[in-house]
């Protein structure tokens, strides 16, 4: 699936995808399906240093800056399909974007598609923690000082 030109456009596209479902069950099953189709993270990246804390399932996230394009390359994985599905949505928004663009565009689409409650830090799915991690990494690169934990 090709990515829209801007994060804002991509948020609109995701919202359109979810408009196909009016049942909560169908939405969750769609997220699970996205999770099953997410490319797995290579085993060498599934190390403690890449773990995102605050998730009930295990989540690993790696990011690096492509020097030529100035865009962040993000990959992530989890042992739970529902979390992999949320990761797939996050990657549609934020993978291959410039750090400044990431920071300027919070993931408001989760609210629009009825998954807003999943953004709360008290939720066990770790979506909040993953977003915090992505923003932290983007902040580091935006300041021109990539943080060590990014790799």
């Amino acid at each position, binding site marked *: 699936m090709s990515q829209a030109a801007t994060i804002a456009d991509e948020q609109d596209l995701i919202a359109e995808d979810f408009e196909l479902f009016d049942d909560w069950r169908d939405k969750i099953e769609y997220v*699970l399906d996205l999770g099953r189709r997410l490319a797995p993270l290579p085993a060498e990246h599934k190390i403690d240093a890449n773990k995102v804390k605050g998730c009930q*399932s295990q989540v690993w996230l790696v990011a690096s800056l492509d020097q030529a394009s100035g865009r962040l390359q993000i990959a992530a994985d989890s*042992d739970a399909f529902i979390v992999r599905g949320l990761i797939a949505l996050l990657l549609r928004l934020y993978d291959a974007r410039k750090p400044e663009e990431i920071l300027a565009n919070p993931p408001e689409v989760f609210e629009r598609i009825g998954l807003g409650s999943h953004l709360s830090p008290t939720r066990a799915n770790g979506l909040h923690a993953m977003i915090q991690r992505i923003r932290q990494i983007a902040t580091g690169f935006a300041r021109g000082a990539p943080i060590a934990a990014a790799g």
Partner: protein
Amino acid sequence: MSSQARAQPVAAAGFDVLKVRADFPCLQQEIHGRPLVFLDTAASAQKPNVVIEAQADVLRHSYANIHRGVYSLSQRATELHEAARARVQRFLNAASHREIVFTRNATEALNLVAQSFVRPDLRPGDEVLITGMEHHANIVPWQLLADAGLKLVVAPISDAGELLLPEFERLLSERTRLVSVTWVANALGTINPVERIVELAHARGIPVLLDAAQAVQHIPVDVQAVDCDFLVFSGHKLYGPSGIGVLYGKAARLEAMPPYQGGGDMILSVSYAHTEFQDIPHKFEAGTPAIEAAVGLGAAIDYVTGLGLDAIAAHEADLLAYATRALQQIPGLQVVGTAREKCSVLSFVLDCAHPHDIGTLLDLDGIAIRTGQHCAQPAIERLGHHATARASIGLYNTEADIDALVASLRRVVAMFS
């Protein structure tokens, strides 16, 4: 005695689960358009009307601060609060109401024992002995004493989740200041042989604390019969309010302990030079307590003793056996924690889906279970898992609840296979 009574099939006699269920308003609702199936009582139990009403009644008609007022309303509130203490005393068969300390929950009671019993004359290298199936509340309070040199010793458990008694006995030493074990393991459901544990420890002069947070709602507890030195539990797991818990301690133990926290209500007189503390249990109850929650706990105790803990235990044992048999028919499902003596808790994993996925999909069918590590990470990891799904049974659960769980799990399996 109690164990003999538990073995008898008394469920049929007078325990009408559908009638009981009607006492719990929170169970009478739909989630995602399906009737709520609540299977997370081990995390916190739903409240019967009598508990809700008892609390509301205090707040509406009998509320004032306790222990100090000379006016009638304060005296009435004080009497209700202390009557709740007397109910707890009878419920545990404690020798005196002085042995019942109200806390916020079992966790606070454990921290109180850590700070007021273990810390004061702790020498570096002293040990607290726990088991490999403990809740974090029976791990972390002892770790907070590491600054004073406390060594936490963990008695190992088997692959089934049972305490290895010979190993436990071997770990009792002249450095063991306290044995602190759970009566029923929250993540695995294992019932520990607490009478034997107390016997082994006392033979060496070592005091014993029992974490009864998962026991008091399932097993008749008699602190004098089991002869533990301390016992803790939470009100909210006993169908009572949250914010109220209990520390039972033998009077001689409590009397020898310094206060845990300082403030109002725990003192006799205060001057800048010298403060004199109240007698037990008030010495450990600084500040205005959770007055209406204590009264609610008293009502919850009346409720479960009215139904009969033996009858409750028999009903739950039947359901646990029914659920275990049914779950084991599901392809790729593995029960985690297979002790011979178990109650209430059924932890499991599926080979096709993560517990988080299971919990999310079950919620869509209106089924509430707990997923994750259940505040017992070392126990779950010991049995080879990062997380499990846990269904736990309360007195209001029915075979229909279990049937709904099984049907929903079969849909999860079909979806992921």
